[in-house]
């Protein structure tokens, strides 16, 4: 059966980088997915996800040493307004009970979500993944990018929260001081776990048969030269996020300006008080009572830093995607140039 490892999350744990292949400080070093799961996710998005942007589902599998094996999955129905009394937990329990009857691994190991142009770094995702990781140490979230997949190659990434972020979420301390203490940057929020796809031999036989029977022509979307549409949309999203970011920065600036102004006022008030007291003493009167300065000057509320962190992470993600896309396209353009030069 599944072995669950309990790794104590200490605040001094070394920071994990986001590059796959680097030493990850987590109980899961690799993810092994079965082809069936991939196909199911693709089908789920294709059929149910065209209207809204996000489809979600649950991953089932087991943990083997330091590998997380995902052997099956089932989709979650959409949140519709007219289904207010729909009980998600009940659906999940029933599904898992039924799957147990047919010997499918019924152990919850994570969840998957589709994304629109890579915009998945959000509060909701953070909360969900935190609750999953809190309950099940090794859980991951699989992000499936259907638009990138439609461009020619399967885009599937697995993420976990770094131990530092887990600490912060646990304490719910999202203020600036809390984040400063933990030294978290936007690059250290999520860690990516490398994925391998493994199929059983029977499925491999099936693949061979399908290949010879199926006459669907290969469309070669990967060699498609048109890029402006995709670039436009990505840049649009990036611009929106940068706008959000700048608003956040303005807020933070006003906050720090207010804070410093208040400090000054406090100082002046204390000084005046002392002066007055000194004068009164020289005149022989009782000094004025020391008032509680802090109550008079209530410090302004520091803006929450968590959103900024999320936005920064999202911007980083967009930039990464855009760079990948442009590098591919540059390659294709140079190839086209070489071919054209060859002809003429």
């Amino acid at each position, binding site marked *: 059966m599944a072995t669950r490892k309990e790794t104590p999350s200490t605040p001094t744990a070394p920071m994990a980088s986001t590059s796959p292949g680097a030493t990850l400080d987590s109980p899961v070093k690799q993810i092994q997915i*079965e*082809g*069936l799961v*991939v*196909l199911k996710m*693709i*089908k789920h998005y*294709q*059929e*149910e996800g065209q209207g809204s942007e996000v489809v979600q589902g649950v991953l089932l599998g087991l943990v083997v040493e330091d590998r997380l094996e995902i*052997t099956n999955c089932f*989709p979650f*129905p959409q949140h519709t307004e007219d289904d207010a009394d729909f009980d998600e937990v009940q*659906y999940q329990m*029933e599904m898992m009970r*039924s799957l147990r009857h*047919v*010997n499918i691994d019924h152990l919850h190991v994570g969840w998957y979500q589709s994304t629109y142009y890579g915009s998945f770094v959000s509060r909701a995702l953070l909360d969900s993944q935190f609750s999953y990781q809190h309950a099940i140490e090794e859980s991951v979230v699989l992000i499936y990018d*259907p638009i990138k*997949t*439609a461009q*020619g*190659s399967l885009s*599937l990434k697995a993420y976990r929260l770094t131990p530092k972020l887990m600490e912060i979420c646990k304490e719910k301390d999202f203020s600036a001081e809390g984040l400063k203490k933990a030294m978290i*940057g*936007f690059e250290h929020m999520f860690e990516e776990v490398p*994925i*391998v*796809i*493994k*199929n*059983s*031999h*029977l*499925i491999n036989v*099936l*693949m*061979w*048969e399908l290949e010879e*029977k199926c006459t*669907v022509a290969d*469309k070669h*979307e*990967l*060699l498609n030269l048109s*890029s402006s549409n995709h670039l436009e949309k990505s840049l649009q999203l*990036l611009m929106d996020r*940068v706008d959000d970011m700048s608003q956040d920065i303005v807020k933070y600036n006003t906050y720090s300006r207010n804070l410093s102004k208040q400090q000054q006022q406090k100082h002046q008030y204390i000084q005046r008080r002392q002066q007055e007291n000194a004068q009164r003493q020289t005149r022989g009167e009782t000094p004025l009572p020391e008032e509680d300065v802090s109550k008079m000057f209530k410090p302004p509320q520091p803006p929450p830093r968590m959103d900024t962190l999320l936005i920064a992470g999202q*911007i980083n993600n967009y*930039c990464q995607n855009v*760079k*990948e896309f*442009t*590098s591919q396209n540059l*390659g294709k*353009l140079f*190839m086209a*140039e070489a071919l*054209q030069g060859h002809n*003429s």
Partner: protein
Amino acid sequence: MDVTVEGMLSSSPSLFFNRLMSVYGPVVKIHPVVLASIGDSYERRNEGASRVIGTLLGTIDKHSVEVTNCFSVPHNESEDEVAVDMEFAKNMYELHKRVSPSEVIVGWYATGFEITEHSVLIHEYYSREATNPIHLTMDTALQSGKMNIRAYLSAQMGVLGKTVGVMFTPLSVKYKYYDTERIGIDLLERTRDAPNTTNGLTSDLCQVGGAAGRVQDMLATVLTYIEDVLSGKQTADNSVGRYLMDLVNKVPKITAEDFETMLNSNINDLLMVTYLSNLTQAQIALNEKIVVL
């Protein structure tokens, strides 16, 4: 009393019969996820069970039945009786309906090579759930060396009033892929070529390189064919010739300057975008450092 055509089929070569595959009845279009699911549930079957059965879900058209999903149903089979967990089947269908309300029960599947008498009983049950259910068989034990994915429709036969039997008439099976499914299958096909049957997902430029390599292979095949025809080793096929003509005509004729300008503007766009994204990343990194100060 129950006669099946399958018994007659096992003697004749399947290729001959495939030609005869009747156009009576709808065309069955199967998605690969269904087949992978069936294979997986076969691998997870209980001890002692020789085959697994399950329900097929999908949509029905005028002339075709598209099978998009399936789930396995626990059942017990012995020499003289068969028991299927109907409650389970109903429950699972309800759950599945919550996710995709447009899918209906279109039939059932069974692994194995032959249609047995028990199949008839199970088929009867499914005819109560759906009008004209189709029966899909997949030979996961590879008895004949292939997987033999076949679909059948049941029809009454016999003399009215007297011995009535059920005949399973075969239907033509096609495979339908969504575009993204095809890309997923491509990736899975590549994993099976690796000796250890595991493979990671490659990244950016490698993929373009791979795709270009594949096109190159295809072009090489076409070239060898053409050379064979030219040297007389193979007779020319007119339809292939027409396709080749289409292929050559598809290459657009652009003057060199136009191409230069197009290429340069595209490259400029891409470079600008790369520069901007690098700038943005530097900016947010800087922002963070400043806040932490």
